[in-house]
């Protein structure tokens, strides 16, 4: 929370809403209402005398973007949050592009107001979305994601969100021993009413910085998760988390495609166990190679690799004919025991080869992101 009180200039076309929100602002600790206007031009011309430090600007109008730009010009050092009755990715993008620092759904509660401003006060979030795909199961993908989330939070000191999009048979809830009240089904159902602040509550915290959005309760519910809504969900989650890790089903399904399309990076992962894994990996990569930016966006991982050495990584690279980003050692018993106990992260010793491998990968990713 800021040490100084925010002096709020509130602009809302709807008189009733204006009154309601003015009351909320007055009742919120750390905020005072400097002035309230129904007309944005009046606010623009007259608001300056109240020396506002926070502008909440109704954007449910035509010409909205020009107005935001006018406000930015007139109040260059004042924080501005767009106010709208409904969050949408397009609207969000437009208002941010026009110079707003965030988006708040009107009317808001004290909590939502405080959280929005807090997000704003924190260092600007450069979120990174990573989709994890494996052509067959048993690659240890879910275990890896759970542990990588912890390691990335540690490395970046930012918040990390896990989205379990293995819609029929997602295991993330079980790995963390969660019994969630809200899942991906409710999140996409409600997405049109949500903002990043309210979406946050659908994620279940599993540590100080890591939260999980769990998969469906029963396989049939997977049908309720439409790819477009899912994409909107991921985009909105970018407003909450520095890293978003998406667990996917072991097949190209509509949800898989939506996740990989919207992600900044797709991690393709398969285990090495004497079957046709290299063939499967090649088949996957052929699909991703249709992307222009394939080389930047797709990373290959092999799991359960024995011996897990640089020589082995190079050998796999040769067999695959494609760079292998990293390899992960086989610690099947350790990992399956941890998963059985719903303590997938806590039970994995930090000195284990697996934990060390995950920590090194998190560091490598974070360093690359800082440079990028």
């Amino acid at each position: 929370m800021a040490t100084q009180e925010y002096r709020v200039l509130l602009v809302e076309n709807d008189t009733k809403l204006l009154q309601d929100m003015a009351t909320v602002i007055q009742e919120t600790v750390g905020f005072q209402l400097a002035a309230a206007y129904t007309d944005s031009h009046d606010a623009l011309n007259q608001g300056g005398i109240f020396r506002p430090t926070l502008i909440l600007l109704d954007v449910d109008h035509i010409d909205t973007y020009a107005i935001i730009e006018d406000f930015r010009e007139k109040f260059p050092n004042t924080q501005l949050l767009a106010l709208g009755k409904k969050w949408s990715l397009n609207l969000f993008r437009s208002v941010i592009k026009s110079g707003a620092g965030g988006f708040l759904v009107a009317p808001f509660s004290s909590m939502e107001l405080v959280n929005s401003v807090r997000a704003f006060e924190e260092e600007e979030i450069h979120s990174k979305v990573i989709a994890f795909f494996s052509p067959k199961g048993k690659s240890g993908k879910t275990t890896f994601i759970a542990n990588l989330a912890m390691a990335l939070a540690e490395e970046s000191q930012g918040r990390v969100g896990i989205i379990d999009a293995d819609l029929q048979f997602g295991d993330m809830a079980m790995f963390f021993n969660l019994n969630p009240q809200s899942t991906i089904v409710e999140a996409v159902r409600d997405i049109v009413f949500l903002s990043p602040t309210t979406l946050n509550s659908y994620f279940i915290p599993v540590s100080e910085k890591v939260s999980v959005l769990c998969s469906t309760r029963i396989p049939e519910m997977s049908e309720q998760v439409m790819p477009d809504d899912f994409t909107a969900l991921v985009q909105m989650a970018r407003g909450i988390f520095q890293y978003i890790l998406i667990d996917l089903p072991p097949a190209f399904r509509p949800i898989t495609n939506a996740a990989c399309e919207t992600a900044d990076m797709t991690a393709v992962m398969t285990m090495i166990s004497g079957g046709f894994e290299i063939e499967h990996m090649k088949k996957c990569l052929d699909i991703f190679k249709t992307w222009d930016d394939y080389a930047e966006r797709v990373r290959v991982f092999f799991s359960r690799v024995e011996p897990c050495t640089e020589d082995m990584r190079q050998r796999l690279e040769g067999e695959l004919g494609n760079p292998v980003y990293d390899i992960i050692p086989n610690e099947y018993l350790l990992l399956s025991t941890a998963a059985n106990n719903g303590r997938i992260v806590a039970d994995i010793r930090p000195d284990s080869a697996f934990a060390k491998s995950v920590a090194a990968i998190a560091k490598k990713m974070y360093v690359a992101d800082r440079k990028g």
Partner: protein
Amino acid sequence: MAEISRNGIIITVFSTASAVGKTLIAVNLTAELAHQGFRACVVDLDLQFGDIANFLQLRPTQTIYDAQLAIDKNPEQFDPLTYTTLYKYEDTSFSVIAAPNTLEQSYNVSAKQVGKVMGELRREYDYVIVDTMATFTELNLQIMDISTIITAVAIVDFIPTIKNMKMGYEAMKRLGYASNKIRFILNRSNAKTNIEISDVERLLDARFYHVLPNDFKAAVESIQSAVPIVLDQAKRYSPLAAGLIELTDKYTNRTGKARSTNTPVTQQNSGGLFGLFRK
């Protein structure tokens, strides 16, 4: 079309987790049926990452993709045998309809047309064995609808897999599949686990219809040699091959040709996945 119109049995091999041995079971079931003298065909409907052609080291020129296109275009002229690839080892041979060669093709496979292809196949073969993808898809559900038996493969490796077995089975029951159509097979696989099967059965309050012993080495060697375990003289008497033959016998009893005295599948009025989730 065949002069004698058969009405072959469709056995679908399904599971709610991948890498549980579906392909191994499907191929060996088919091989053993062929070995016993039945006309048998295995269809790889694990469309995206199906491994039957890899497993048997076949290079199919025609796949299920071509078959479903053809039956859509010209159903009158459709001959399913055009789309099969023959696998032959010593005196035994069976047919394979391979998965599509590319992911793009797998995306453009119509569930409805595959259903029609299956209808034609069952007129040609005594047994049509189907390998599947480990998820509920329109195609899988349609195939399960027309299947005589659904062989649901389970492994006991860790708790999330067991949760998914239970979730999958409960979904199948909600979808209206009779429990006696579903047969739960436990593949011991190579699962290094500290979970006892008896604990799983207690947890699920259920039992398995058939258990395959752990013989990972034989399975891997079979993959490398491209010979189904049940056909390989060196392995035919291994515990895993014996388990697979015994399973085949359970399924063939209805013909009266089987060697074992197990209760025929079609006469059982109970059983099913986990037995019955005993109340």
